Every structure is written in C-alpha cells, then in structure tokens.
C-alpha cells in the first residue's frame, strides 16, 4: 500500500515494530499487533471503549493516527496490571462487581486512571465527569463509579504513584 512505513510504537513499555499506512488509526494498529484488550466500539469518540493512555493522558485511540503516536508511551489496560498482580482499579472493578459483560471495562479503567493521574482525590462528581466519555451498554454505572472511588482511596492509602 502506498503511504506505508515502518513505525515503532512503545506499548506497555515494549517497543513494537509495525508497518502501517498513514491513515491507520492507533486503535487499528494496536489491535493488529495483538493488543485486542483495546476495544473497538463506535470509532467516533463517543463510547470510550478504545481509550488508552498516551504519555499518561487518556485519549481515544480511534481518533488518533498511528504515525503520530511514535515516540510516545502508550499504555493499555494490560500495561496497568495482570490477573496475578492487578492494578487497584482492576481489583476494585473485580471485587465490587463493576464489570458485567466487560466490553467497556478496559476503556473505563483507562479513563479512571486518567482522572486519578490528574487528581488523586477525585470527588464523585469529578469521577462522573471523568467517565462521561465512556459508555456501558449494560448500564452498570453505579458500581463503576463506586469502584473508581474505592480504588482512588486505596491508591492514596498505599501512596501509589499515580
């Protein structure tokens, strides 16, 4: 394909080479390299399922071009924690029943981490505002908001770097 080139994306701390055309989104590039934990929902910035952290800021990977993501730190949900060593947000979502079908969960947790990076002690309203770009079609919002509040307070207690 014309307008293709090899780029190096730093995903969850590892450099990965991929050859993509200029019009490829970061979402498509991530899923092509096996990072299917990043979900493809609306592809127009409404649902937040594709959220990833780029240099610690939550963005929609469907609205970002892969080429412009070179040289930046990309973090997906898998970069936050593992089943054996879950991140406090992942543990809180598990323990407080904040995931139903689970499709929105990666984006929700990334958006929540984005909120906490900005403000380690968000109020309920600030959490709501921070998650207003994430849709949950199971509509399990109450437990999601509880889990984020709980995780934020756990992270403050443990003095975890945000």
């Amino acid at each position, binding site marked *: *394909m*014309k*307008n293709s080139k090899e780029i190096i994306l730093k995903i969850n701390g590892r450099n990965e080479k991929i050859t993509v*055309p*200029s*019009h*490829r*989104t970061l979402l*498509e590039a991530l899923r092509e390299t096996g990072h299917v934990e990043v979900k493809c929902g609306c*592809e*127009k*910035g*409404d649902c*937040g399922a594709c*959220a990833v952290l780029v240099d610690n*800021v*939550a*963005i*929609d990977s*469907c*609205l*970002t*071009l892969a*080429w*412009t993501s070179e040289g930046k730190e990309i973090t997906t949900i898998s970069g936050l924690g593992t089943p054996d060593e879950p991140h406090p947000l992942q543990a809180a979502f598990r323990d407080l029943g904040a995931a139903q079908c689970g499709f929105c969960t990666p984006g929700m947790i990334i*958006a929540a981490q*984005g*909120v906490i990076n*900005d403000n380690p002690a968000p109020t309920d309203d600030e959490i*709501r*505002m*921070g*998650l*207003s*770009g*994430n849709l949950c079609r199971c509509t399990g919002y109450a437990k999601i908001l509880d889990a984020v509040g709980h995780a934020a307070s756990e992270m403050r207690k443990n003095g975890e770097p945000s």
Partner: protein
Amino acid sequence: MYGEFKLEMPQQLDEALALIAEDPAEVLSGGTNLMIELRARKLRPEQVVSLDALSELRGIEVDGNRITLGARTTISDILRCDDMAEFGPSLLDAANLFAGQMVRNMGTVGGNIACSSPAADLVPPLMSLDAEITLVSSKGTRKVALCDYYLSYKKDVRAPSEMITSVSWKKLAKNSSNSFYKLARRIGDAITVTGVAVTLTMDGDRCTTARIALGAVAPTVFRATNAEKILEGQILTDDLITTAAQQAKAQSSPISDVRASAEYRLHTVGKLTHRLLTQARDKLV
C-alpha cells in the same frame, strides 16, 4: 477504514505553513472532529497536515490585560488553568460541559473554532469575550474578530493557506459578569441544542457593554447585536431584558434536527437569554 491520504507531520510552524501553501490540505489538530469527517468520507483530502509536534502552539499566556490561548491548547488545559474562572468564566462553563474526558484531552481551541460548526461550544463564550483570532500563512499574519470570522454554515474567512495559531481577548472590565449556558439532552457528552453566552458590564445600575452570543440556533454562531444595542447605555429593567431576549429570538434562525425542533430552539433562546441577562444584572447591581 479511512480513505488514503498523504500524512505530513511538520516539526516547525514554518514547515506546516509551507505545506498548506503548496497543496490543498486538511489541518489535523486534536482530531476529534476531523477524524470523524474523514472516516465518514465527508472529507477526502489528498494531504493531511498534523500539528501534533507543534507544542509551541499550546499554552495559555497572560500579557498585561490580554489572555492568549495557543490554537493547540486543549479543553483540558482550559479546565486545569487556575485563573480561568477570572479570565473567561463562560469559557470555563463551556469546558466543564464539553464532551468526555478523552475528547477534552485531545480537542483543541483552534480546532473547535476552525471546524466552523454552529454547535462548537467554545465559540459563543469566546465571542461574548470579544475574542480575536490570529490567522497565519507563509505570506504573513492577520487578526480577525471572532464575530467576523464565520460567513455561513461551515464557511469562514480562513484561506486554505492559512492556519489559526491563537485566540486572545482582553480581561473582563471591572463590574462585569460573563457566563455560558449549554442546553442539551443530557449533561455529559452531548451536542448542544441551544447555547447562550452573555457578558454584561455595568456602571452603577447602567449597562455600558452587553454581549450576547448564540450557538446552534443559526447557520453559524453569531452575536445578537440588536439585543445588545437595546441594553447598552440603559438601566436594565425587567421589561428591557424581556425586549432584548425577544430580539435575540428574532435574530435566530434555527433548524429542526434530531436534537430539537426549530420552535423549541427559538423558545429556549428567548428563555435562556432572559435568564442569563437577569442573573448577570442581579449579580452586578
């Protein structure tokens, strides 16, 4: 998913300006609008020029009496600015109700202005602050009052070789009130049905300056200048505010769409203009 295009990622503003001077191009800032248009094939550019590397265009500066936002300043940057409640209360109101977190982190002031949507939420606040934008091309720089920028639906005075690099305004005069109200079908992440931004400056009980900027109720965001004229130089009685609100309504020409009927939009322009003017007066007098 997208049509193919040549993607340029200039490292310097001069380089970006040279690129858009040579060949027609779409300028990519935050991408929260342009990427959607590209995907829907509403736009099929040969060339896209990404401003991603131009960090010089991002930031909030205060020089004496003037506040300047670089075009690449994001909605989140506005929210993080401690002094925004003083510099531009209406702009802060709009940023607080702007889309969702990720879009606020990506979307930029310049992009919101340049997309020329009548529902661009930063525009009524900026217009109510008498903001001016800086347009730069490889041939030079010009300043345009934001209220003179839009020509018709998605049409503006920007030439293809020009780029918005900043937007600036004068600090609010003493004894001023400035606010924005966004009416939408829900609070978070929704497109505006009716947007009203108001600035009032009072000298005692007399109004010296009035600005009323209306969004999503005409082909472009615009100032309800007839309503402003009714108020300036006058003592703001309830009757006068009612007349001004009716004028704002008379200057609007909304359409019906999936979000609201034209009739409802007209009704709410009148009501919201009345409400914001009354609140501003009561705060100042």
